[in-house]
């Protein structure tokens, strides 16, 4: 047996233990919170846009959850910087697993995609395309 799961390569553990862009923005354009109730994973994403409102200028997140969800949010926060809101909309599950660089077991995909879902839903609410009462959940 090797050391631990393939899912827990150094990069994942590093982002879990030292999350990037962890904290709060002073003047975010939007803030959104989402959760996976059965895991207890909760992520809050804050995004600041450029003056045109088209490109992501800054991202901060806070949260509580498993290594996969937290590392994924941390890596996403780096990836989002400089991305257009359209590009954010188009991020799919494959993009997230590619970013993580490991195979995510089927039962854990919902952990991996929580951060992306929170960012996308936050952006849609900001544009008035989603009811803010709809809380983000990546499980049924």
């Amino acid at each position: 047996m090797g050391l631990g799961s393939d899912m827990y390569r150094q990069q994942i553990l590093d982002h879990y233990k030292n999350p990037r862009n962890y904290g709060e923005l002073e003047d975010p354009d939007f803030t959104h919170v989402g959760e996976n109730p059965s895991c207890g994973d909760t992520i809050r994403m804050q995004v600041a846009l450029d003056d045109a409102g088209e490109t992501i200028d800054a991202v901060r997140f806070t949260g509580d959850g498993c290594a996969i969800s937290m590392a994924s949010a941390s890596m996403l926060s780096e990836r989002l910087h400089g991305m257009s809101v359209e590009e954010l909309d188009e991020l799919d599950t494959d993009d997230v697993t590619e970013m993580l660089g490991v195979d995510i077991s089927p039962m854990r995909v919902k952990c991996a995609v929580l951060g992306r879902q929170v960012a996308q839903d936050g952006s849609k609410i900001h544009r008035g395309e989603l009811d803010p009462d709809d809380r983000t959940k990546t499980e049924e």
Partner: protein
Amino acid sequence: MGVQEQYPFDVEAVRADFPILDRKVGGDPETPGEGPGDDTPLVYLDNAATSHTPDAVVDTIADYYRGYNANVHRGIHQLSQEASVAYEEAHDTVADFVGASGREEIVFTKNTTEAMNLVAYAWGLEELGPGDNVVLTQMEHHSSLVTWQQIGKRTGADVRFIEVTDEGRLDMEHAAECIDDDTQMVSVVHVSNTLGTVNPIPEIAAMAHDHDAYVFADGAQSVPTRPVDVKDLGVDFLAFSGHKMCGPTGIGALYGREEILDEMQPYLYGGDMIRRVSFEDSTWEDLPWKFEAGTPSIAQGIAFAAAIEYLEEIGMENVQAHEDLLAEYAYDRLTDLGGVEIYGPPGHDRGGLVAFNVEGVHAHDLSSILNDYGVAIRAGDHCTQPLHDEMGVAASARASFYLYNTVEEIDALVEAVGEARDLFA
């Protein structure tokens, strides 16, 4: 060594009855057995979720479909007679197993949850109203908690929860406060699927009966793992599931005292549960068939009885002794490991399961890593979300044992937990 010498029966001989225990894991779930790392022996410690099925029970199912598959209570032909007799006698076997008076007191259901719902709908919706209360505990499984909570909302009855002490036991003083003359039902989990606590059902039943309330014991974790007798417990209802006790999924049982079941109206209507039907009205079949509408799970019901016969061969006292041995060993070893928080009463005083968290490691991460070591445990809220809220954690890991588990398998668990802890340190 030493602990193995205390096994109350030949565990290796029992393991030989369960071929699944020989399989290897660790490969790609999409193509089991083909991926890398698929040479890890399975260490199955998720028995509180579902147990494995011995050859004798699998054979019973196959024998039914190969030999006498027919609908029950329908035909005069030989196959239907054979199937009907076997299916009815399965009720007798279940009745004997829990000390019920006879098949009239045993209704086959899909599982424990359906048995709960049967009573909640057939009795609760009829009998409960504003001013009444139903008393549960904080350690109820969602199967009872959600059911009575929702029946409470529909009927206006109050739902109360007996508190759990820091050691994971029921606060009996609080129980005495909760149960009063307006209490109609006290529904208590016998062995907690999260804390491993063995609740004092006879004491609670006496308190409930003093106030003319019924008592419903959730036996999902107790009936598979220890001798359970409804008369010794003093309960009016008991529910349990076949798949947690060497039987197949899709079959469970409700025990109900005959005079109560007699008074209750059916929960499901349809075929098999009626005696005489006209366009205007219908009358009901005798117990227990009144509560078994439609074609039942025939093979599963017969196999349920085969599972009970398998367990009785080993002896439920022995099953309990083995569970106690493993629970205490696991509790001690996980405690010695350090950085592990275990929930519930001490190792020598609990059912055969241990729920815990490792400092700095989320339960889902722990379970994923353990999976790579071939160790199958449960991670999550174990269908006790409000209890986890009380414990102050979102999720926990749970190792649960059964008659085929060994001390060596617990060693494998503890080693893998140690590796996970170090990985995240």
